[in-house]
C-alpha cells in the first residue's frame, strides 16, 4: 500500500536519495551529521520532494531544515497552507 502520511513519504524520498533503507531514517536523522549531505544531495532531494509532493521547492527553504523531522514539519505546514489557499 502506498504511504499516505507526509512523514512516511518524506522518509521514503530521503532514503532513496541517500541510498538508505526507510527504516534507517528517523525524525532525528540529521542531514549533515548522519547522512553526510552535500549540496548535490540537496539538489536531488529537492527534485525528489517536488515529484513526491507535486509542489515547487526553493532551495533556500529546504536548506533551513537540519533534521528529517524538521523537513517533515516544514512540508506538513506548506501543504496545509496550500490547502487553505485553494
Amino acid at each position: 500500500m502506498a504511504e499516505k502520511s507526509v512523514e512516511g513519504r518524506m522518509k521514503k524520498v530521503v532514503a532513496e536519495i541517500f541510498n538508505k533503507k526507510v527504516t534507517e531514517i528517523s525524525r532525528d536523522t540529521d542531514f549533515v551529521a548522519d547522512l553526510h549531505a552535500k549540496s548535490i544531495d540537496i539538489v536531488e532531494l529537492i527534485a525528489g520532494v517536488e515529484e513526491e509532493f507535486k509542489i515547487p521547492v526553493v532551495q533556500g527553504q529546504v536548506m533551513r531544515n537540519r533534521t528529517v523531522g524538521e523537513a517533515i514539519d516544514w512540508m506538513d505546514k506548506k501543504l496545509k497552507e496550500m490547502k487553505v489557499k485553494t
Partner: protein
Amino acid sequence: MTIIDDFKLLAKKSPKRIVLPESSDDRILQAAETATREGIAKIILIGKPDEVKKKASELKVDLSGVEIVDPSNFKKLDMYVKEYCKMRNKSEVIGRNLLSKPVYFGAMMVKMGDADGVVMGAVYTSGDVIMAAELFIGLQSGVESPSSFFLVDIPNYGQLIFADASVNIQPTAEQLADTAIASAMTAKTLFNWDPKVAMLSFSTKGSAVHPDANKVIQATQIAKNKAPDIKIDGELQGDSALVPEIAQKKIKGDLGPVAGKANVLIFPDLDAGNISYKLVQTLAKATCYGPILQGFSRPVSDLSRGAKVDDIVGTIAMLGVWFQRMTK
C-alpha cells in the same frame, strides 16, 4: 585591442556550440543575437520556442541562426535521463525532474557532447552554476574542487592570473593545491602561456613560521605530487614571486623557474585574492576579467548577475576559444 577582442577574432575562426540556459533574461537574448550575427559562436538557447520568440520579438532581437531547444521535447531527453540515473544511481523520476530545469539541462548538453560550453549566471546564483557544472560536467582530471580566476591586465606590466577569485573562502591545503593545478591548466590552454605558479604567503621560504604559511607549503607539495610537470613554487611573498632582484635577495641559491618570474598567483584565501585584485584594479588601473570558473572538464562560465550584453558576448567568445584549445 583588448584580450576579449582577440578572443572574438579567434572564436570566429572556428565557432563553437555555446549553450545559454537563461533565455528568460533580456541580455541573454541580445547576446545570442550579437554572437550569432558576428559569427562568434553557434548559440543554443534553452526554453519554449514560442515564449523565447515572443520575448525576442518584443525586444526586437533577431534570433535567425540561433537554435532553441525545449528540454521537454528534446529528442535525446530519454538518453540524457538514463545517463544521469546511471551516473548518480538515482531513479528516473529524479533525473527527469532535474533535466527539466534549464540550468541542469544546459550543463548536461555539454556533458553529452551536444554543446561545447555553457554560459550562465545572469539569473542563476554562483552556487547553482557551480552545482550544475560539478554534477553534470565534472571536474578535470587531477582536480577535486573547482575554483575561479581573474585575468589581470596591468598597464606597463602585463597580464597575470589571480586565483582563487570567488569560490573557496578559506581553502584547505588540498583545495589550494587544486586551485594551483587548475590555474596552471587555464594559463596553458586558454592563454597559451608557459605557467609559472607562485603560492603566495606572508612568508618566503621559511622566513616566518606560522600555521598559515605551513598550509601554503603543504599545498605546494600536494600540487607538486599531483601534477609533477607544472612549474610551481611556494611559499613566496608577492615581491619574491614577481621581482627577480628581490627573489634573489630573499632566496638563497637557485631561484628555480618560478620565483621572480611568476605569471600565475595563487592567494592563500579569498580575502587575500579579492583584496589584491581590487587594489591592483584601483591603484594600478588594471583591467580585471572574471571571475571565471576553472577546474571543470569543459568550459563553464558563471556570469556576474550584473553582466552587460558585451560582457556576455565576450564570455561566449572566450569559452569558444577555450574549447578550441582544450580539444586541439
